[in-house]
């Protein structure tokens, strides 16, 4: 077993991540402003930014879904119970004892079970909640004449706001997790350079060196 620097986040994936980050921060900031939590932006500007950021994020998501399925990378997000408990135990106990993280990153499986589950829930629960309600809200002009439309809109707004709170909680934990290693930068770096330290079997190492030389260094 050798630990090598392997490309685990390709260029598109990095672009997706950081693009998504910027847009979510923007949406969060403008959205909570529209909600009335702060008054740092003119409402008109906030509406415009919120709408355009939402469109941009939807387009980005369209590309990411296409990418996930055409590159088979969706498999990284498949949930698994194997090792989940040990990761949970690590974060709630072992980390305080200075234990080593129980998960070994593989280049074909870059997320630990807790991460995979968290990201999957984000993708299939929280994000759809917010984009489905958001699109319904944007298209209100089409269905405003329907019976009970204003009551339905209120529910849509509630779900939209609730999902925003949940995503904020996710983001806070997500950022905190970056501090749980040697350094903040160590965790952020792979999403910048694409390369992370991964333990490879001799076969994997040989394969990558021979067939995917750009993925290993």
């Amino acid at each position, binding site marked *: 077993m050798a630990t090598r620097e392997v490309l685990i986040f390709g260029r598109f994936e990095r672009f997706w991540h950081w693009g998504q980050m910027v847009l979510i921060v923007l949406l969060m900031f403008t959205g909570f402003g529209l909600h009335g939590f702060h008054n740092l932006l003119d409402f008109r500007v906030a509406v415009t930014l919120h709408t355009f950021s939402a469109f941009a994020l939807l387009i980005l998501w369209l590309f990411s879904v296409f990418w996930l399925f055409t590159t088979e990378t969706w498999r990284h997000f498949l949930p698994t119970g194997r090792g989940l408990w040990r990761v949970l135990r690590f974060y709630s106990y072992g980390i305080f004892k200075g234990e080593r993280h129980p998960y070994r*990153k593989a280049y074909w499986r870059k997320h630990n079970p807790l991460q995979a589950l968290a990201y999957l829930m984000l993708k299939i629960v929280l994000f759809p909640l917010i984009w489905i309600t958001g699109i319904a809200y944007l298209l209100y002009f089409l269905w405003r004449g329907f019976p009970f439309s204003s009551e339905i809109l209120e529910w849509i707004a509630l779900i939209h706001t609730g999902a925003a709170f949940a995503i904020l909680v996710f983001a*806070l934990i997500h950022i905190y997790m970056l501090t749980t290693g040697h350094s903040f930068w160590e965790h952020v770096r792979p999403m910048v350079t694409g390369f992370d330290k991964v333990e490879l079997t001799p076969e994997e190492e040989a394969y990558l060196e021979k067939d995917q030389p750009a993925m290993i260094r």
Partner: protein
Amino acid sequence: MRRLTTTLLLGLCLGLVSGGLAAAEHAPAPPPPAEPLPPQVSGPLTGGTADHTKFEVLQQPFADGPAVTEACLSCHTEAGQHFMKNIHWTWEYVNRDTGQLLGKRHLINNFCTNARGNEGMCAQCHAGYGWKDESFDFTDETNIDCLVCHDNTGTYYKTPNSGGHPACAVMFEDLPPLDLTYVARNVGLPRRANCGKCHFNGGGGDNVKHGDLSTALIDPPRELDVHMDKDGLNFACTACHLTKRHLWAGSRYDVIAKDTEGTGKPGERRDVATCESCHGLSPHPVNSVANFKLNDHIASIACQTCHIPEFARGGVATMVEWDWRTAGKTRDGEGYHEHGYIQGNGEDRYVYKSIKGNFTYGEDLVPEYAWFDGQMRYTTIHTRFDLDAQPIEINSFTGSRHDLDSRIWPFKRMRTWMPVDEGNGTLVYAHLWGEDEAAYWGGYDMGVAIEKGMKDFGLDYSGDYGYAETISWWPITHMVAPKEQALACRDCHAADGRLDGLGDIYLPGRDHSRWLDNVGLLAVLATLITILGHALIRRFTNRGDSHDGHA
């Protein structure tokens, strides 16, 4: 403009005359068509083909108003019949939907109360001559007052049709003599000042009643009204209140709260006074997300709501409260008045008059907002109400998000303590104007005035009068500000914004689920505390640094 409008009328007149002459010259005349030709749609009238100063019939001294009217009708042969159908003449309006009999002839407002029985004074604003009591002949065309609307000299005026109590008659002394021939030869389409003679002074003074109609609109700057702007569009009232056969579009008795037709077909003239009839159904240029959203707003929000941010602007105050309870005080047996409100243009307004009571004024007022479907219901002389349920609404309206006919409209709210029949729970007709001692304006005895006012019209009166708090609602639609002064989003999309308390909608920025917000904020707070706790425990326990986790 005056020349143009004058000649327009003349053109119409000459057209009729020359048509008749031509028919007479070419004998034998062709047989008249068996059926009148169906009307065709013409473009708006242009050009000027006649000059009223040259009309022979107008080169004579006129003894009185009706003599002028006779001269007018000698050319404008159908104008009399047309005119007698309109509300300026009938002072009567039957609402199609509620069946209520409305109009000044019947209604009681919470300003000077009832015109009925007081026509000697109030019918100064009737577009006719001499209505002072029930004997007025509504079928006599020569009783129509053409000049009050068509005088373009600004010198025409009217005085009460009856003398009134000597105490009041002094108001109308020392007026300059009226040159009817001069006025008659200088007629034209009505200018803002013509309509404003009555409509700017409704309720007994400048802007007293409507709040959005004041003498400031005679020559307004752009900031006061973007359409009537004297240096800009310079619209007369009839630019929007389109007129056909002396019937006008747009009335408080028949409000289109939501126009869904817009401009109509290309070039089509829709005889309505709605904003949409010119500006269409997507009035904001679709060049931004925000404007797209604004165009969506028009389904729920009347144009007036955003584009008339305040009313009673331009330096003329409107009355917001009137207290009849204090009326009738005299000094040495004489009525008096007190000044005490200096309005924006520097004019000092009365705050008390013996004949009317105390007044409270307001300027640059933020309207009240409510869903409005265009339908007003009036408390008439026949309506019985519960005196315990004050304030009593002189006119009330309905509307909601759900009926799709309603929009959020701005209103002026007028609050008045006014005389009522406490025994029967009704409004009253008070005899205010008259030469007799029963007339309140001079006699100062409200009980006697009501007794007579009710008896004159055979109305049931308990003999027990008092004062009740009343409210009336006035939709705001004039004094449209330039677009840069329109409301901004935050004026409504905020917790204590203008639409605070308005129901039936979820308004982002105003509305929250307190429950959801608390749970959400609590979750965020709990997360932060957990993170902090986790980090602290890590700091004090974790010596080794072998972590290899993932974000």
